[in-house]
């Protein structure tokens, strides 16, 4: 450890936010707008194909799950996966490109914008991108007639929160990454198993009991528990618990991401 004077801010200081984060969000939005056409098309085509293929294909073999047609079960669960994936991708690959490859963060830091602002902007932007994806999927769900409940619009803020959660968790891994390869582990060892444990494609009651206990504290499971009823037009039975789980992951993840990113830049 060096003398305390070398510490720009303590790595563990609470997040310091200023309005300077906003131009960084706008920068990312501007880049996205340039590619918006293909991006929106992909956002709509991908769920459309998946829902039609699996929902109707596999669904015709399965019949009902939890008292609903399989396609409803699948669509209302996989939208939460899409939020998680979109935010994770942005917080890992895209943010890493800007941070370590293009040196965009370095050039922003030469302007009067602090690292805390940049990390917050990246987190917020990844969540916004997740919302874009989810909005497109809701359109598909509506058009296919899987749900026509006006209440599904209430799923959007929850999906935004899920975006914040998964963006924050992604930024933790971004902060310690030495290259893109590292992110493969995160997807293979964390995200993919989580999707199978969160009752997206099948109910977790099929699982051994101990796995069900684990699943109950996963952020994706919490998101699915909130989003599924809302998309299908009913209120979640016990909303507080999953909401607190999502929020706790978001808060802890964001703080940890910030501490690790400060260490990466100033350590």
């Amino acid at each position: 450890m060096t003398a305390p004077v070398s510490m720009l801010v303590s790595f563990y200081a609470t997040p310091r936010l200023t309005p300077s984060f906003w131009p960084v969000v706008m920068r990312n939005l501007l880049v996205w707008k340039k590619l918006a056409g293909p991006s929106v098309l992909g956002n709509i085509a991908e769920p459309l194909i998946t829902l039609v293929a699996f929902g109707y294909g596999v669904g015709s073999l399965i019949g009902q799950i939890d008292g609903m047609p399989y396609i409803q079960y699948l669509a209302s669960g996989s939208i939460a996966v899409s939020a998680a994936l979109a935010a994770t991708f942005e917080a890992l690959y895209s943010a890493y490109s800007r941070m370590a490859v293009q040196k965009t963060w370095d050039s922003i830091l030469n302007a009067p914008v602090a690292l805390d602002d940049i990390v917050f902007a990246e987190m917020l932007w990844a969540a916004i991108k997740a919302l874009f994806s989810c909005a497109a999927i809701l359109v598909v769900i509506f058009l296919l007639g899987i749900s026509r409940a006006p209440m599904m619009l209430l799923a959007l803020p929850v999906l935004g929160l899920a975006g914040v959660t998964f963006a924050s968790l992604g930024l933790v891994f971004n902060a310690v990454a030495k290259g893109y390869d590292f992110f493969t582990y995160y997807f293979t060892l964390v995200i993919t198993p989580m999707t199978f444990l969160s009752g997206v494609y099948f109910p977790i009651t099929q699982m051994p009991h101990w796995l069900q206990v684990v699943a109950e504290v996963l952020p994706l499971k919490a998101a699915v528990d909130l989003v599924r009823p809302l998309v299908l037009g009913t209120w979640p039975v016990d909303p507080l618990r999953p909401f607190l789980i999502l929020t706790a992951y978001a808060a802890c993840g964001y703080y940890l991401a910030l501490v690790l990113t400060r260490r990466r830049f100033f350590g």
Partner: protein
Amino acid sequence: MLAPLLRIAHLTKKFGNSTVVDDLSLEIMAGECLGVIGPNGAGKTTTIRVCLGLTGPDAGEIEAFGLPVPAQVREAKKRIGVVTQFDSLDPDFNCAENLRVYGAYFGLPRATIEARVPKLLEFAALQSKAGAKPGELSGGMKRRLSLGRALINDPDLLILDEPTTGLDPQARHLMWERLQNLLHQGKAILLTTHFMDEAERLCDRLIVLDHGRKIAEGTPRGLIAAHLETDVVEVYGEGAAAAGRAHVALAERVETSGETVFFYLRNAKPLLDALADDHSVRYLHRPANLEDLFLKLTGRQIRDDA
């Protein structure tokens, strides 16, 4: 009494056990160009990073525009423009967008940015490239766009870290012309460079840095006069080594680097007369320059990290 725009007092910065900047003090006044020269690893870039609050000092004080760094560096950065050693232009944006987006980071009003963008494109000689992305630009164009970007906030102090490294002579001369233009406008510049002709041409004052320590400071001419003989005769060719031994008494100092023998002296005539009949050598007589000074002060050996 004018206050300096940037004041560094007794700055020390360590990475682990190695001291990268060692008790460095310097000041830059308004409108002045201060050059920091030194071999690779001398601590030039680290000094700049400390001044920008990107890494904390282990000891010492820094003030930019009277504001303490790093405590109030964000306020100070509103009046500073930075060109880093490696281009960090936004590859997704064209030239005009690069300037606009960067202006937004300073919180500048849109109208101010829009008014400045065409002027900066013109300054960077990139009017015809406004819609081109950095990937389509030459090295010189990218550097000029980086310089233009650093001017978006109309800074009073420019910090330029090796702004012409890697450029061809034409691009370098164009860059020098632009920097001179900025000095005429009254902007202050802190410049690090490896090019002694660049330092001699642009800088009012120079600091020579080696192993993180300031080993000399002064005007380019003053430094040469203080540390060097007036003239240099470079001798090369197959008989150079023998000539070096034979005429050692005719010079104040003789140095050998590879195949070339350098005679440092104040009166070159006796040596030139002696060499005139020696057909085994070729030679060049020239005034002593900053490169001679640099090599005298920092040595001829290649640095480990060079």
